């Protein structure tokens, strides 16, 4: 297994080169073996990051099937380009960037094909707000929390695509601003601005409904 201190060895080519140089016994290592190692690395990346990518896409689309499809597409695309991944950013950032682009493409295609009757399985806000960990809350606290979650969903629904992405990466995926900037390809200043507007909207939604 190629995980050390929670980090994944993200450079299969470099890893295989090191292994090949280690000793004469390994000199016979073929290209196929290197590919196997790369595949093992990728398998680790999938296992580690798939839930997070799925969660982000689920929160972005509120559509379980669509989130699942986009997650699969994301990892398929990542697998095809795994050889060209140079490890300049973390695998998570790289995968998140692919996921964000896929999601953008999806909505763009939907807009372009406006005449097509496309079925959307996005759950409504009430249903999305139903989910809360049981914890040690009273029924009243649960109800209050559910209401808050619904209001946040309502605000998220009204955000622009970019604001929503930044907001979800920050407050659901708990990413740092620099990481969000790398994932979205925006500058940190722009990320801050989007986040500020998104939070203002959430605050207004919460304030207005109280």
């Amino acid at each position, binding site marked *: 297994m190629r995980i050390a201190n929670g980090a994944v060895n993200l450079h299969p080519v470099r890893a295989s080169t090191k292994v090949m140089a280690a000793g004469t016994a390994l000199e016979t290592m073929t290209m196929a073996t290197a590919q196997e190692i790369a595949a093992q690395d990728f398998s680790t990346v999938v296992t580690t990051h798939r839930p997070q990518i*799925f969660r982000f896409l689920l929160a972005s689309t509120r559509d379980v099937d669509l989130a699942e499809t986009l997650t699969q597409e994301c990892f398929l695309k990542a697998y095809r380009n795994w050889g060209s991944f140079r490890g300049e950013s973390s695998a998570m950032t790289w995968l998140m960037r692919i996921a964000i682009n896929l999601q953008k493409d999806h909505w763009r295609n939907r807009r372009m094909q406006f005449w097509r009757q496309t079925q959307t399985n996005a759950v409504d806000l009430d249903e999305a707000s139903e989910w809360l*960990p049981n914890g040690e809350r009273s029924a009243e606290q649960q109800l209050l929390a559910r209401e808050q979650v619904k209001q946040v969903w309502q605000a998220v629904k009204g955000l622009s695509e970019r604001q929503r992405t930044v907001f979800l990466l920050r407050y659901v995926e708990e990413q740092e601003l620099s990481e969000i900037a790398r994932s979205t390809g925006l500058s940190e200043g722009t990320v801050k601005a989007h986040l500020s507007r998104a939070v203002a909207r959430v605050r207004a939604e919460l304030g207005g409904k109280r």
Partner: protein
Amino acid sequence: MSLEDKLANEAMDSGLAEALINFRLSVHAWSDAEFGKPRTAAKIVRHGGWRLAAGWALGCVLVAGAAGGGVFEHHHQQEMAKAAAARAVQQQRLAAEQRAREEEDLLAKVDSDVSREVPSAMEPLAQLMAEDDAK
């Protein structure tokens, strides 16, 4: 740094911070529940195939109509141009014939006028010829 700490650092009011934390917990709970569910691939059944066929048929009719209309208009314009050219040629021919007739009439009139003009010295002789003709 946990989200709670981050929110505290960002100086958010407690209501907003609490809502954001609940939102995160809710999304995580939902995602965890959905992620663990087994899924079955279902064949996509296309409903409204007739709508697609009707759309294509209408599209084809529109395209054929537009193309046919264009071809007809082009052909019609060509016919009109030919007829106009033929009319112009006919008019030119008639005008030329008219001119030729007028010229002939003019020449005949000139000939007649010239032939009737007799010098005064020949007048008696001309009278005699006229009398002989009368006899």
